[in-house]
C-alpha cells in the first residue's frame, strides 16, 4: 500500500481529459447520426418514419453497457477489432443518435406547420424549407435539451471503463487497485465529474431561461 501522490492526481486528470475527448467524439458523431435520425423521423414517407422509430425504440430500450459489449466484443468475434476508444465512441454515437434524433424531432415539430406551408408556397424545396426556415427556429429551442443530454452522456462515458478504455472512472479504478483508498480516489473522481458537468448544467439552465424570457417579451 502506497500513499496518494501528485502522480496519482495527474493520472486522474489525464483520465478526465480522455472523458472529455470521448464526450466530444460522442457529440460530433452522435450529432451527425442524430441529425440523420431526425430527418428520417420527420420524413414524408410513413415507411421511413416507422423504420427510424424502430431504430430509436431499439436503442432507447437497450442499456448503453450492452451496446458497448456488442460493439467491442461482438464485432471482435466477427473479426472487426476496434480499439477501446473507437468502440466506446461508436457505441455512444449509436446511443446519442436515438436520443438526439428524438429531441431534435420534437424541436423541428415545435416550429409551427404554417411556417413550412408559407415557405412551400414560396416555391422553396424541402431542403431549403428545412435549412432556411425550420432549422434556424428549431435550433433555438434545441440548445437547452441538447446540452442537458450531453451532461448525461459525459457521465455515461464512465461505462467505457468496462472495455478497458482508461477514462476518468477506469483511471480511478487503477489507482484504487494499488492504494485501496476508495473514498479518497472515487471521491476525487466524483468531484472531477461534477466539475465537468456542473458548468454544463448551469449553462443549459441559463439558455432555457433566456429562451423563456424571449418568449414572454419579444425584444
Amino acid at each position, binding site marked *: 500500500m502506497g500513499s496518494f501522490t501528485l502522480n496519482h492526481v495527474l493520472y486522474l486528470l489525464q483520465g478526465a481529459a480522455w472523458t472529455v475527448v470521448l464526450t466530444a467524439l460522442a457529440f460530433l458523431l452522435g450529432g451527425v447520426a442524430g441529425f440523420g435520425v431526425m430527418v428520417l423521423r420527420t420524413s414524408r414517407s410513413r415507411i421511413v418514419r416507422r423504420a427510424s422509430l424502430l431504430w430509436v425504440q431499439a436503442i432507447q430500450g437497450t442499456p448503453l453497457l450492452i451496446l458497448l459489449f456488442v460493439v467491442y466484443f461482438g464485432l471482435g468475434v466477427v473479426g472487426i477489432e476496434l480499439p477501446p476508444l473507437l468502440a466506446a465512441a461508436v457505441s455512444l454515437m449509436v446511443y446519442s443518435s436515438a436520443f438526439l434524433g428524438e429531441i431534435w424531432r420534437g424541436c423541428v415539430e415545435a416550429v409551427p406547420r404554417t411556417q413550412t406551408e*408559407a415557405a*412551400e*408556397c414560396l*416555391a*422553396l424545396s424541402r431542403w431549403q424549407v428545412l435549412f432556411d*426556415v425550420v432549422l434556424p*427556429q428549431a435550433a433555438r429551442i434545441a440548445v437547452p435539451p441538447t446540452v442537458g443530454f450531453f451532461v448525461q452522456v459525459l457521465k455515461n462515458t464512465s461505462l467505457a471503463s468496462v472495455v478497458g478504455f482508461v477514462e476518468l472512472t477506469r483511471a480511478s479504478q487503477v489507482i484504487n487497485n494499488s492504494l485501496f483508498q476508495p473514498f479518497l480516489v472515487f471521491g476525487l473522481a466524483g468531484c472531477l465529474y461534477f466539475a465537468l458537468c456542473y458548468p454544463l448544467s448551469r449553462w443549459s439552465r441559463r439558455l432555457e431561461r433566456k429562451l423563456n424570457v424571449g418568449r414572454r417579451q419579444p425584444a
Partner: protein
Amino acid sequence: MSAVVSLRDVHKRFGQVEVLRGVTLDIAAGEVVAVIGRSGSGKSTALRCINRLEVIQSGTIEVCGHAVHDPALDLRVLRQDVGMVFQSYNLFPHLTVAENITLAPRRVKRTPRAEARSLAEEALARVGLSDKIDAYPEQLSGGQQQRVAIARSLAMHPKVMLFDEVTSALDPHLTGEVLKVMEGLARGGMTMIVVTHEMGFARRVADRVIFMHTGLVWETGPGQMLAAPQTPELKDFLAADL
C-alpha cells in the same frame, strides 16, 4: 376569355367529411374574385387546393397551364406562378423584412444579392413599408406584418395571388391598410382570389363574388349581388353578417 384558374367538379374529403362536393369555377386573367361563405363552407379549402396545399380526391384543377390534380406535377413550378397570403401572416420570425422577401427569389430564382435587395425595396414600396426593410417581424404591427407578407409574395412575381382571410386576425383599424394594398393590386391588374369576410371589399373591389355553401358554389355574380341575393342561403348569410 382564357381561364387562368379552372376547377372542374372538384371533390375534397377530410376523412368522412366531404368539404368540397363538386366545385366548378373559372377565373380569367386580371379578374378579382371574392369568395365568401360561412366557416365550414369549403371556401378556404378550395383556395388551398388551388396551389395544392390540399390534395383533391377527384376532379381537375388547372392553374396557369399546370395540372394541379396531377400527382406528378412539380409543385415548385406551380408555386412560382401562384402567390399565397395567410390569415396568420406566417412571416419567418428569425429573418428581417428584407430577408423574408428575398429568401425565395435568392434560393429559387438565384437572384443575386444586390438585385434581390432592390426587388425587396420595390415590393415594400408597393405596400407602403419602405422604412421597415431592416426590421424584424415582431417589431411590426399585425397590419404591417400582413403587408410584408403580401410584398414577400409579390417579389416572386406570381401570376395569381391567393388571399386566405388575410384580415381576419387584424383589428378593424388595421384591416383598412391591408385592404387598401389589395385594392391597389387589383387595380394594377393582378389576378386575385380573395377568401374574405369583408363584404365591403367584396362589393367594392371584386369583379365577381362567389358565395360558397356546404362545399358548393351556391351563388355567383358581380358585387351588386350582395344587395340582391337570389338564394335564401345567401340572404341568411348576409343577414347574419350584419
